[in-house]
């Protein structure tokens, strides 16, 4: 667990970090994000004391870093930097074992550990004896990550590790690091300026703006409830819509669904449908949803006075209010579903979705701030 307590840092008498109070829990993937120059890297490097703390304190598992021996504490913290940070004159194996060697691990054990680590980051063991200049950028990063994991530290600091890589390689490494973090239950502090990367990786995101923590929350909450306009604009207006897993049914559903009691007649149902121009109605009672009636089922039946009860269909999909948009899109059958009831976990109807609602929701990600106000015409 890392605790930042009132951390303050200035450079040439200008504060670069102020009032930093933050707790990173063990096993948490915390992403520090902000525009360049906001102080995020400075903050990261204060943990392993590459930057001294001017005021305040940073506690690692309750002990102040200022009371720890620099070298010893750094050996217990993994450290990955932007270009991988490999030493060009050392082979892959030597780059990894430099930490193991300083910890006094026997040579044979080092060799075994190097093999494990290379496998862990999906690198062929034949890379052991190559030099960094013989590796691609992505491979260098994998070695850098392997080195950070070498001594099996509980905490790993990553300073914009993937920012210089092309998108395909970056995506691979992002996947890899998330898996490793979950599998080995590491606490990771990850600095980036890329919101997409932050959303993809983080358990929590800490947004730093001009030396302050602007907001620290889960990716979902940051997307939905930016703490202020600055955060909102930093996150980007459409970021939420490009991350459909964070959009839940309740965020886009319409409340007050068109409903009808099962005691009503076919005629009454048809009239309601006609009135609201819908092709289905939810049949409800106090306990919740009984089912659904479809226009097509009613239209061909001539006995308008017969009870609706016989026409209730249970052939429908309902979604919980916190089911993600992504999941809804992936599961529903567009040819069949008309109305999609949204229910609470207590099975109470809270709203509904339709194909047109989904469509308009998804189309919002293409909205730009300068939408023209033209209401008619051909586009």
């Amino acid at each position, binding site marked *: 667990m890392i605790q930042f307590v009132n951390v303050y840092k200035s450079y040439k008498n200008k504060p670069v970090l102020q009032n930093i109070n933050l707790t990173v829990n063990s096993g948490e993937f915390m992403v520090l994000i902000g525009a360049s120059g906001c102080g995020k890297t400075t903050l990261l490097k204060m943990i392993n004391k590459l930057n001294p703390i001017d005021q305040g304190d940073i506690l690692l598992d309750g002990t102040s870093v200022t009371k720890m021996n620099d070298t010893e504490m750094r050996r217990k913290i993994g450290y990955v930097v932007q270009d991988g940070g490999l*030493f060009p004159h050392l082979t892959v194996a030597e780059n990894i074992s*430099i930490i193991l060697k300083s910890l006094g691990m026997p040579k044979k054990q080092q060799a075994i550990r190097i093999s494990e680590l290379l496998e862990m980051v999906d690198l062929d063991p034949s890379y052991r004896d190559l030099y960094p*200049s013989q590796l691609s950028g992505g491979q260098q990063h994998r070695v850098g990550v392997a080195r950070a994991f070498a001594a099996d530290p509980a905490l790993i600091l990553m300073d914009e590790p993937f920012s210089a890589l092309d998108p395909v390689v970056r995506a691979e490494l992002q996947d890899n690091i998330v898996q490793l973090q979950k599998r080995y239950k590491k606490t990771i502090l990850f600095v980036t300026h890329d919101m997409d990367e932050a959303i993809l990786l983080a358990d929590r995101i800490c947004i730093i703006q001009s030396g302050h923590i602007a907001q620290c929350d889960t990716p979902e909450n940051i997307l939905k409830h930016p703490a202020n306009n600055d955060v909102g604009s930093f996150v980007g207006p459409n970021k939420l819509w490009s991350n459909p897993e964070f959009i839940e049914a309740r965020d886009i559903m319409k409340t007050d669904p068109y409903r009808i009691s099962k005691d009503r007649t076919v005629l009454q149902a048809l009239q309601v449908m006609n009135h609201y121009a819908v092709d289905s109605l939810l049949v409800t009672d106090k306990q919740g949803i009984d089912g659904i009636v479809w226009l097509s089922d009613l239209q061909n039946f001539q006995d308008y006075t017969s009870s609706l009860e016989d026409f209730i269909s249970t052939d429908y999909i309902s979604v919980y209010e916190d089911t993600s948009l992504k999941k809804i899109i992936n599961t529903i059958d567009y040819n069949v579903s008309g109305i999609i009831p949204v229910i609470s976990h207590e099975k109470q109807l809270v709203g509904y979705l339709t194909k047109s609602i989904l469509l308009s929701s998804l189309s919002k990600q293409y909205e730009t701030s300068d939408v023209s106000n033209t209401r008619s015409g051909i586009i």
Partner: protein
Amino acid sequence: MSTFFSMFLERKEELLNLFIEHLDMTTMAVFISLVIGIPLALLITKNKPLAVIVIGIANLLQSIPSIALLAFMVPFVGIGQKPAIIMVVLYSLLPIIKNTYTGITSIDPGKIEVADGIGLSPMQRLFQIQLPMAAPFIMAGIRISAVTAVGTVTIAAFAGAGGLGWFINLGLNANDPNLVLLGAIPASLLALLVDYILAKLEEVVTPEGLKPPAQIIQQTPKKILTKRLVAFGLCALMLAIPVSSAISAVVQREERTIVVGSENFTEPIILGYMYKDLIESNTDIQVEERFNLNGTPLAFAALKRGDIDMFTDYTGVVSAVLLKLPLETDTEKVYQDVKTIMDTKQSVLVSEPLGFSNEYVISASPKAAETYHLKALSDLIEQAPQLRFGCTTAFSQREDCLPKMKSQFGIHFKSVLGLEGNIRYQAIDSDKVDVTDAYSTDAMTVKVKLVPLEDDLSFFPPYEAINLLRKDLFSKYPEIKPILEKLDHAITTEEMAKMNYAVDVDGKKASVVAHDFLVSKGLVD
């Protein structure tokens, strides 16, 4: 070429000794500059203002002429290998400090931060990251300084340090290009050898990973090990030779040793060999040679410090240069003054005159002498406006020479040409000049027929050869007093000139010429 080869064969043993001596001094000096330079460079990487100062000083040292640096140091550290090695060290420092500094400071600061960040201690960072990454720079500096050192060490001969500069110096004195080459060629070969060995070392200490990817050769650990062994072996050998010779010198150094010094021209060297020969063939005392000292002040400083026990010089020089006495042309008075003042004020003993004088003798070509009826100095002054004068720069500059001639007699030559050494004789022989400043014992006066002009005006101070000795010498070794005295009044000017000729023109070894003379006089067997 054939003379060069025969000279090589004749002197090959001496050459080998000088070669090893040269290598000794070079490796010793470079080794010392490494020990000083690299830590100093590492120290200043942390302090920019200090770096500017240190590199500035190293630059300044580099710009001092080596011979001046050497002469400056002798009064403080004496003669021999010590000032030579110090001089070479001072010269070698700049490339080592500068390259190490550049190598360390040009490492990407990001890498250093990572080294710290992953938990390397400052020492681990230095030895595992910084030094290996700076290795190509540092090695380049070492190679530059080592190769330069081989060249600079040749200057060391001027402070009696030996080495291949000895041959070069002898050759320059005798105007013998072969002898110069005999020193210069091995020195160049030594430079190439040193560079080759260091190139091997550079190859193994340069991390493979720092090369461009296309040039990286994946090597088996065994092959790397072999290469390292070879390179380190060669370097160890290079270091072992000086160390072993230093040890053997210490071990072999006899308790009873006299150091005979000599200035760096043929005449005193012959005299030095004579004293050496006399002492060694009459006593069991070991004699060490410290020949080739660059000039009277340096030799005298060495004598005062006890680096040498004796050296020969001339009354006129000692009087003017060392004692700064007013100009005096009375031969006897000059000798007595020198002897008394040296004894009382400097605690240095002066021997009886050795018999010959090495004075300035203005000499004319036979043709000019005949044409202008030149017999004495007074004739010269009269005829000067018709005569072309070729003289050494020393003669034209020294207060007691040409300037005094001008002020005292209003002498005015048709032309004055500055000529050095033996070129004067060639010039007079080929009728380019009519008159020159010769020395009375000069070898060339034997070869080139010159007409010496008598000093009827008592213009030149006397230059009687004398031996200067440390006062404690006779108290330590009373038995050598009568032995050294054997040379008192023993050599005529003509004999000395012939011996100089034998060495400078015939190319005989000074030691042989000295020995032959002593035998002919019945002084040794």
